[in-house]
């Protein structure tokens, strides 16, 4: 006992402000120790357990990473002043931030909607409580009400403790926007958490996982740091695998100037399991449709973690690689692979940041710019340009998990809600036995996988496992009820997250896969009639 106390005292002496905020000297989480909640099929609203997740902090980025991103290497000395100044700047740039910090009435509508609250019971994971961490500071420094009434109005000085809470709880938000659906004013906690992360980066405390990935993306062109040579070699060996398996020479072209289609897909598709099965699916679809297509070795990433840290500049810089690839490879069409946040950025932001995406870049106006791979494939199926043999998937009883960003921030097709209908129609075209999860957990009410928004890092596996709880309950229920055994996804992060957390809940990770994995199995290759 005495020894432990001494060690604690010693540690306290050397703790810097940065250590306190980021919990750098706290013992690290052992992923193997993380236990999943019990599966009952029910999603219960828990009673509050204050501080339950206070110690679950993600690792802080190293000084060299921060500096490579153009941020201060470590927590700056005048951090309070600098943070308030940055907040003031963001308030003049983002209507969302200004309006959402002002108009919340704390009605409580969102309090039981966040998967991280439902899973962790920590009240600061309730969307309004999370946003209030920033709102407090806004009130204190920027509003008359906060200056006069102080804490009676919920205003608070930004001190070390509060900054530590920012670091903890703004990294327990996956920016999935489920709370926004249920807010009477549409207050979007993603916008608030993005702003908070941007402020934290600007004063020198960034998150390691996201910033490290972004440095690789900026330097090499994808999140994995896979260079063009390695990418080409991987694609060639994948071609050989397909040849061996199906006896068909399906190509995975890289850097083909003048190909009809440029495919931008998350780099996890190039090698990770089950992601690569979907990549093979896209390749087979293009092959069978007889359309020329290409990947780009320098724009080899659809993902763009710039969004997660709220940085317009980094998001735009990363997206510029894609514009550059369009200019050099001169495709007529732009198609995006299975990835949630990437589809949001492609669908909603590309045209603003790297556009106009039109004939000035050589893109054909008759196609959606960009187009989702599910839109593209379903169109081919409906026109009869490719044939799917549903019976090939008869061993599979799939259900579909709407990815948060696809469901609530984008569309597919021409009609609102196409982002729900098109993936389901495609699964139904490839399988006979589709089943649907509870209606409160799908479509616009879908739960996040628990790993989005930059949380896909193992030191916060406890957050991820708890965040996955509502989705796992719904999947468990449909398994019990209808024997579902395939969890169909259209997001690289969802795939990585569920492959990791399924085993924690006692479900085999083999059940996780992409929609185009099902397409790959069902597609009839060979001569067309």
């Amino acid at each position, binding site marked *: 006992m005495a020894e432990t106390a001494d060690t604690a005292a010693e540690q306290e002496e050397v703790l810097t402000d940065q250590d306190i905020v980021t919990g750098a000297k706290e013992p690290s989480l052992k992923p193997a120790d993380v236990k999943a909640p019990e599966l009952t099929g029910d999603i219960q609203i828990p009673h509050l357990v204050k501080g339950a997740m206070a110690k679950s902090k993600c690792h802080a980025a190293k000084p060299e990473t921060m500096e490579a991103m153009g941020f201060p290497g470590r927590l700056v000395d005048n951090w309070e002043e600098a943070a308030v100044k940055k907040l003031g700047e963001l308030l003049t740039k983002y209507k969302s931030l200004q309006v959402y910090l002002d108009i919340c009435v704390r009605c409580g*509508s969102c309090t039981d909607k966040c998967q991280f609250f439902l899973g962790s019971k920590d009240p600061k994971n309730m969307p309004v409580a999370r946003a209030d961490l920033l709102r407090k500071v806004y009130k204190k420094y920027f509003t008359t009400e906060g200056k006069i*009434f102080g804490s009676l109005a919920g205003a608070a000085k930004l001190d070390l403790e509060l900054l530590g809470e920012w670091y903890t709880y703004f990294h327990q938000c996956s920016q999935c926007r489920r709370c926004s659906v249920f807010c*009477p004013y*549409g207050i979007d906690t993603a916008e608030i958490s993005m702003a908070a992360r941007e402020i934290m980066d600007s004063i020198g405390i960034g998150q390691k996982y996201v910033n490290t990935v972004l440095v690789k993306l900026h330097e090499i062109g994808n999140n994995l740091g896979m260079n063009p040579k390695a990418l080409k070699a991987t694609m060639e060996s994948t071609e050989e695998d397909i040849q061996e398996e199906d006896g068909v020479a399906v190509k995975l072209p890289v850097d083909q100037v003048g190909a009809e289609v440029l495919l931008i897909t998350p780099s996890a598709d190039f090698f990770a399991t089950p992601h690569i099965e979907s990549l093979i699916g896209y390749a087979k679809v293009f092959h069978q449709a007889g359309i020329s297509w290409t990947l780009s070795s320098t724009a080899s990433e659809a993902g763009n973690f710039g969004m997660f840290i709220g940085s317009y500049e980094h998001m735009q810089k990363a997206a510029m690689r894609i514009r550059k690839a369009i200019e050099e490879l001169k495709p007529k069409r732009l198609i995006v692979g299975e990835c949630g946040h990437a589809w949001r950025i492609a669908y*909603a932001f590309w045209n603003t940041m790297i556009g106009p995406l039109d004939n000035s870049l050589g893109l054909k106006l008759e196609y959606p710019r960009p187009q989702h791979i599910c839109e593209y494939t379903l169109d081919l199926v409906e026109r009869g340009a490719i044939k799917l043999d549903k019976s090939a998937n008869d061993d599979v009883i799939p259900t579909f998990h709407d990815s948060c960003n696809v469901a609530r921030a984008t569309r597919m097709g021409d009609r609102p809600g196409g982002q729900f209908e098109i993936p389901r129609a495609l699964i139904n075209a490839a399988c006979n036995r589709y089943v649907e999860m509870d209606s409160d957990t799908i479509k616009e009410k879908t739960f996040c996988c628990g790993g989005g928004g930059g949380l896909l890092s193992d030191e916060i596996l406890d957050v991820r496992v708890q965040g996955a709880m509502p989705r796992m309950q719904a999947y468990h229920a449909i398994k019990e009820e209808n024997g579902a055994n395939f969890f169909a996804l259209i997001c690289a992060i969802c795939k990585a997250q569920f492959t990791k957390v399924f085993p924690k809940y006692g479900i085999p990770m083999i059940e996780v896969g992409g929609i185009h994995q099902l397409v790959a199995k069902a597609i009839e290759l060979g001569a067309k009639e």
Partner: protein
Amino acid sequence: MSGLTIFFVIYAYVAIAVFILGFLYRIWKFGKTPAPLKIDQTPAPTSDGGVVGRMILEVGVFKSLLKSNRIIWLFGYMFHIGLFLALLKHFRFFFAYGPGWIAYITTFEIYAGLIMLFGLIMLFVLRLVVDRTAFISVMNDYLLLILLAAIASSGLIIKHFSRTNLTTVKEFILGIVSFNPQEMPSEVMFIIHISLVFLLFIYFPFSKLMHSGGVFFSPTRNQVDNPRDRRWVNPWGKAPENIEIASNMTQDEG
């Protein structure tokens, strides 16, 4: 003019000025802040008309709240609809000869006040007894509900229990709005009622009550879902031509 009248005339003009100027300033600020990106929460309307429809449902029936929590919706809606009807009936104090529809509205005035008060009391209770809302509530959330409930109660008392002469009330209010101040009625309940109303006017632009104007500026609700068809321009964004690209951005590698 009595000292009471002089005080209340000044109080009235200060309160009205703070309310109008403060409200307009806040709205101007919401309006001028740029929205750099399309962040509409989908499924969203694909046309301007659709957005108007979405807003009408949000403001008229609190659609998102209804989807979320029927209890909060019920009491919240009771309060707002009660307030709305009570406000309408107050219009009769602003016209020397009121239009006929106001007389019609006044037939449900008792219900309006009671519905509003009941909604407020239940919102207060909910805030207190549900552990989640108790956790997020700050003192001003409770004080505001108390202020509104006090306004509603004093109004109901004036109408149904006190002997306030409504003709003198009307003369006072018409005097204020026509810049020709008249004697302030000296009935206690009326003094309480109007003092609290003016206090609310003054607090309004500084408070979360700005949700009333702010909701129309919420980008997740007021944007059209058409980013592929029409390019959304960020007023402060750099043009793509001016973005620095990393050094290895070339297709032919060694």
